[in-house]
């Protein structure tokens, strides 16, 4: 049984290893030699890919990182305070709002994407990063609100009651008591926000159009569509694809326990 499991695990990562080794092969060797070890090892695909477009690939990485960083800040601020209100405060129509928030977990965003696009288009915000990051400050990712609600509910109420007795209002309780105790959940929210934003393709495809605004997925897509039977740029395509998953691999190596816990406790899709 363990032998089968090990074999299966190898099968799972083999495509990734194959892509990496292909990025180190000369163009004419990629589909001729399918072994993992290149006959003629070359690193040329990396610098060639990096400078393939008018602007260096580093710009796409910076664009992607900026969007991810702002998205993380937005989600941390908005989802935590929203979750605190739902988890701790009593107010009129709380259950109604909470149910609506939960329904948002299941809503396909295609139902809202067209009016949203029209709205951002009318505000002349298409081809800026605002349509991608602004919603994060408005707690639109119900998954994270839900995750934080679950986490805050597990914090003993005596702590906030003690602070309330000392005269702290709800906002003070949130900032002084709840927020510091939420650190593990905040890390989980940050990690998942990063992964989802880094992998996001649909909304970036919609909103970012000009060459200098492109993100890593959009640049890869351009490389991909210019690669075909006629022009051979497979090596470059593989090299840039490998680079694009390095941040995800880094997250995987440093935070895999948190990733696994986050998925196991909330059913978040990885």
């Amino acid at each position, binding site marked *: *049984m*363990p032998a089968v499991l090990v074999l*299966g*695990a190898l099968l*799972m*990562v083999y*495509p*990734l290893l194959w*892509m990496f080794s*292909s990025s180190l092969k000369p163009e004419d060797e990629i*589909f001729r030699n*399918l072994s993992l070890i290149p006959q003629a090892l070359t690193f040329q695909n990396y610098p060639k890919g990096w400078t393939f477009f008018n602007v260096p690939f580093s710009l796409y990485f910076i664009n992607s990182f900026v969007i991810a960083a702002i998205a993380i800040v937005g989600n941390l*601020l*908005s989802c935590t305070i*929203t979750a605190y*209100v739902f988890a701790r*405060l009593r*107010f*009129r129509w709380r259950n109604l709002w909470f149910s*609506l928030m939960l329904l*948002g977990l299941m*809503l*396909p965003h*295609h*139902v*809202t994407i*067209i*009016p949203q696009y029209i*709205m951002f288009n009318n505000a002349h915000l298409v081809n800026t990063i605002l349509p991608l990051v602004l919603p994060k400050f*408005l*707690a*639109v990712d119900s998954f994270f*609100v839900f995750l934080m609600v679950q986490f805050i509910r597990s914090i003993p109420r005596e702590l906030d009651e003690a602070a*309330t007795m000392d005269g*702290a*209002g*709800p*906002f003070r309780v*949130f900032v002084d008591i709840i927020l510091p105790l939420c650190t593990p959940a905040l890390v989980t929210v940050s990690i998942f926000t990063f992964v989802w934003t880094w*992998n996001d*393709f*649909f909304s970036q495809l919609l909103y970012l159009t000009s060459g200098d605004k492109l993100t890593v997925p959009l640049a*890869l*897509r351009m490389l*991909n*569509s210019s690669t075909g039977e006629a022009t051979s740029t*497979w090596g470059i*395509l*593989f090299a840039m*694809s490998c680079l694009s*998953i390095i941040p995800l*691999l880094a*997250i*995987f190596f440093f935070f*895999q326990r948190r990733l696994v816990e986050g*998925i*196991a406790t909330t*059913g978040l*899709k*990885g």
Partner: protein
Amino acid sequence: MSQQASVGEVVRVASPARTVRQRSANGAAYTMLVPWLVGFFGLTAIPMVASLYLSFTDYSLLAPPEWVGADNYAYMFNGDYRFWPSLTVTAFYVFVSVPLATVVALAVAVGLNRKMRGIGILRSVYYLPSLLGGSVAIAIMWRELFDKNGLVNLVLSWFGIDGPAWLALPQTAPWTLVFLHAWQFGAPMVIFLAALKQIPSDLYEAAELDGANRVQVFFTITLPLITPIVFFNVVMQMITSFQAFTPAFVISNGTGAPLDSTLFYTLYLYIEGFGNFRMGYAAALAWVLLAIIAGLTALAFATARFWVFNPDD
């Protein structure tokens, strides 16, 4: 004033003082809820109403929306030669890949649910594709794996099979997308593993004493107890796979080729709305998608009582 709020929760007596306290608590809560409320109305509720309205119009962004009644829906079901292929291939993708990924996830989770050196590393390796899978890079890699001269056909050739040009044939192209989904079974596997660890070990010990073999133990103890998790995984995967976009877009270069065999529903919606700028029609497509997902979710919940374990029964 606000320090009384938590006391007010407990003392459920209607008094003028309580009303004042409650009002102040309401005020504090709603103040902090402002970001979410703005997002809920501005980015979800109002756009939903707007997209429902748009679905009854012709709208190209350039001229104001023009009311056409139910024409968009009528055209979708009776006139549009691309709608049914896109719905069919999406349904095929969902109904083949979700059960496939669920079964594999459960099988691997059962295999990994043991104490053994290095089991954590194995678990991570199985999970990794799930983390990377949604990216453009992986879709590109997949495209090359299934190239006529790619790795998959090389392996097949060892067994004397002359593999097809997977992505060039409408019969095989959708399968590559199914395999890509199935490869990413890591997240449901992790959820299954967490559930398997919750099963009390005395149940297994009792079964062992009764002389049950491993297959019997799985089907009489493990599987019935984790049916709620199976249900959860299937429903969540179904909802997300109906919305799959990136792999189909990358593999077909945004066209749904060959012969619309990879024209996922959301890809078609994207082409109509943002390629042809038929925003009214795209909104109608979105509402039909919502209806399909809601209908299937409701169906899943309706059938749940026949096969999902409920500890209260």
